[in-house]
């Protein structure tokens, strides 16, 4: 009983003369704006937006929301994205007037509570990462990477070193090379060994006095902890380079090991993943970065400081070596407040249990699927693992078996794993159950997956069968892009 009228495009619901708001008349003497502005500055008509009543707006967006899978409604083992439960308490807290209804340019004495939260978060992230100086400013993980690489560039400039190259393994997120280029570096990909670890010999070949930063995701995007990380750090440090840790997978190691203790000089957190800020249909996130004491001076400014003499918090802009701003105002504060709240909900014992159970759940799921899906990188993993549907495809004559299985999972009410990433595994299906799923959910998912791989190739290739649309034609979408609605020509 879908309401298909309400989910027509909002523009098709428009009726001339209708409105969803009614603003009060002005209570000041009315004047003619034409007298204030130069000729041509005023529009000749109002912007051609749709005209919709309030109930129609409500019905439209409410019905649209039901066309999404979400963590609140479905199991969502999307590898590398850490789709864990988003506690409702954090939503209520973040909406408190004193946290949501404050202006970024209010005087510090009127926002001491907020500054205390942010200061507290800086401290807690420093402790969790083992890296003492923190900037909360970057707006997303990729933005944190970029800020850190800019910081590295500033550090080398100050030392009078001209280092040109950033390196990362072939399993790295695409943001790593893209960030490196935006920060003005050349990028070199280092191959991984067949066991998923960094190929140390290949790394050595590329390390030299031009090496600026080696970016490593550890645990890696393959769900493995690279136990060579200390050796890698030593090698990079020996040539004068820095280690950047992509913190995408921190959920696996909270309270167990710390990047600062295994050689990292800089890292970012993804609080929307590790500390459960909701993903918002693709954002917002945040990308706080933590660095060594030596690099701290270069962090974006401001950071939150505490003045002992007056016992007050303040925005510290007096940081002459800082790379400057990477974002306007303080940062994605709403996401940071949720992270603070989430960390405080757990405490040291709880954070460690997150990591333990994320890893337990992933290993358990691995144990349940390895009987019918190849898991090329072994029987153990951290918080996620990468299966391969390649052999299923060969048996069944399917060209893109990972895609077909993913689509078939939709019919059974599961969001599929991440497919075709990392690039180093053919027909990759990357599964990250997270700690907030129960054994019953994992069992049911594994059972469904097992049934699916035994289904006929015809059924798989035509999947999904029960969703409101079948597979979209992405070729047409990219060949002849239609990126906005336009009125139909009669």
């Amino acid at each position, binding site marked *: 009983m879908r309401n298909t009228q309400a989910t027509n495009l909002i523009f098709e619901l428009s009726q001339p003369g209708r*409105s*969803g708001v009614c603003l009060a008349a*002005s209570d000041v003497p009315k004047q003619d704006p034409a007298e204030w502005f130069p000729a041509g*500055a005023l*529009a000749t008509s*109002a*912007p*051609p*937006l749709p*005209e*919709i009543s309030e109930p129609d707006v409500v019905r439209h967006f409410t019905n*649209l*929301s*039901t*066309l999404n*899978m979400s*963590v609140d409604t479905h199991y969502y083992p999307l590898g590398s*994205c850490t789709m864990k439960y988003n*506690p409702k308490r954090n*939503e*209520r*807290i973040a909406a408190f*007037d004193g*946290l*949501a209804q*404050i*202006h970024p340019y*209010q005087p510090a004495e009127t*926002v*001491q509570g*907020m500054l205390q939260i942010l200061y507290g978060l800086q401290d807690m992230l420093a*402790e*969790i990462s083992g890296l003492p100086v923190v900037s909360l400013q970057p707006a997303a993980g*990729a933005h944190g990477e970029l800020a850190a*690489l800019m910081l590295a560039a500033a550090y080398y400039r100050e030392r009078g070193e001209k280092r040109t190259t950033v390196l990362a393994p072939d399993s790295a997120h695409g943001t790593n*090379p893209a960030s490196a280029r935006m920060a003005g570096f050349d*990028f070199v990909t280092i191959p991984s060994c067949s066991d998923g670890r960094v190929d140390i010999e290949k790394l050595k070949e590329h390390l030299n006095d031009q090496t600026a930063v080696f970016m490593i995701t550890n645990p890696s995007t393959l769900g*493995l902890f690279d*136990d060579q990380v200390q050796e890698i750090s030593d090698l990079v440090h020996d040539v004068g380079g820095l280690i950047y840790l992509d913190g995408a997978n921190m959920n696996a190691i909270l309270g167990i*090991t710390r990047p600062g203790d295994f050689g990292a000089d800089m890292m970012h957190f993804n609080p929307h993943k590790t500390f459960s800020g909701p*993903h*918002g249909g693709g*954002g917002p996130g945040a990308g706080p970065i933590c660095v060594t004491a030596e690099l701290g001076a270069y962090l974006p400014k401001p950071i939150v400081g505490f003045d002992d003499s007056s016992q007050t918090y303040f925005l510290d802009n007096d940081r002459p070596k800082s790379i400057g701003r990477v974002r306007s105002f303080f940062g994605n504060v709403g996401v940071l407040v949720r992270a603070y709240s989430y960390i405080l*909900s757990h405490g*040291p*014992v709880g954070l460690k249990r997150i990591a333990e159970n994320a*890893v337990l759940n992933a290993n358990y799921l691995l144990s349940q699927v390895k009987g019918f899906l190849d898991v090329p990188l072994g029987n*153990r993993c951290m918080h996620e693992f990468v299966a391969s549907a390649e052999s299923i495809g060969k048996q069944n004559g399917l060209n893109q078996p990972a895609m077909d299985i*993913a689509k078939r999972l*939709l019919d059974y009410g599961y*969001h599929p794993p991440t497919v075709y990433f990392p690039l180093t595994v053919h027909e990759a299906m990357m599964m990250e159950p997270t*700690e907030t799923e129960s*054994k019953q959910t994992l069992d049911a998912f594994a059972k469904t997956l097992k049934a699916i791989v035994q289904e006929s190739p015809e059924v798989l290739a035509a999947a999904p069968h029960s969703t409101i*649309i*079948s597979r*979209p034609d992405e070729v047409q979408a*990219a060949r002849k892009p*239609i*990126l*906005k609605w336009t009125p139909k020509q009669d």
Partner: protein
Amino acid sequence: MPYVFNTDDEQAEMLAAIGAASIEELFECIPQDMQLKRALNIPAGLGEMELTAHLQALSVQNKSINEQTCFLGGGSYDHFVPAVVDALASRGEFYTSYTPYQPEVSQGNLQVMFEYQTLICQLTGMDVSNASLYDGGTAAAEAMLMAMSVTRRNKKVVVASSVHPEYRQILKTYFACIGSEMVIVDCGTGTTPVEAIAQVVDEDTAAVLIQNPNFFGNVEDVTLISEIAHAQGALLVCSVDPISLGILQRPGDAGVDIVVAEGQSLGTPLLYGGPYLGIMACRESFVRRLPGRIAGETVDRDDKQCWVLTLQTREQHIRREKATSNICTNQGLFALRAAIYLSLMGPQGMQDVANLCTQKAHYAAEQLTQHDRFELAFSDGFFKEFVVRDTQNDVQQLLQQACENNILAGLPLGQWYDELEDCLLITITEKRTKQEIDELVNVLTQ
């Protein structure tokens, strides 16, 4: 309390299935000397009741805009947010979903992205919009990088000093790494001096960045500046206030090539500065250089209209070091808020809200400058913000006095502009009443 639901018995069953003796064994891949072996030194975990009380206590230490009257702006605005926006955007199906990698079960989010893109094009008069970036400041930086890619000019850009100072600081940070020159054109008279732009824009210039209304609230001659930029083959990038487009000429109709904006005004609360919404829209021919996610229309296997993420080869996950940007996420939740807001407002609502802002702002400016102590710093036409000079040069005392009367009187400009040390930027949104404005004038002239 962690959100972990497996009982001890279930954990034991799971370990047995894995073939591990203990959870510790699962972490054996981490060398012992790297393991922490102590508890993290952070506060002990709190139950929901204690947590809520703790944050409530911190929250009330902040003075919210519901306890005082806000005349602060400068890129973050106290506009009214209709209840419908909060009610719809807080649906879990929206805010606990992620990037629509599986279009068959993300048609809701994808259609919202497509509608958002269309609404932004309607509002700005541009051909295409992406599905959003982080915020107005980073959007401006991304636009300048994009302009360099479009024009294949990487030596130089020109930026008006009337662009938000923090946006310029972001640009400076970004440009420090790529070795391109950023020429700042001084706007000491309140708007961008057209002759000065003409002097510095040359055939090496990739783009000119202006803001309209600018940081001082003044309206720029966008069309003329676009002609100057285009005459040298440079692009015009313009950062706009989306609320102003209820009455001001749309940038797409004034020759702007890339429009960026801080979208917070469109249905998002102040949030102490974020998360906000980076708006970016451009000419159709630049679409393959546009950063960020983009939704597009297509059909499914049964020829049914539907939406997908498209033009993905621009993006980092495919193009890696050659990507147009490293951007991965958009600000989906805030693009949703903007889409709901614009759908509710419609043409009439946007026109009304813009009119209310500018009528009230002019009233405030007139009232304030009737007193000898204050004069307008500039003579240009302004929209909802204006710069007022304290002839007694004691801005801090004024702010203090206002604060004691529960008024956030304005933004002191000396922190960014030496010559405006005795000036305040005062912002009037549709929420400010005549009574509140009179009270501001009263308090500042006591």
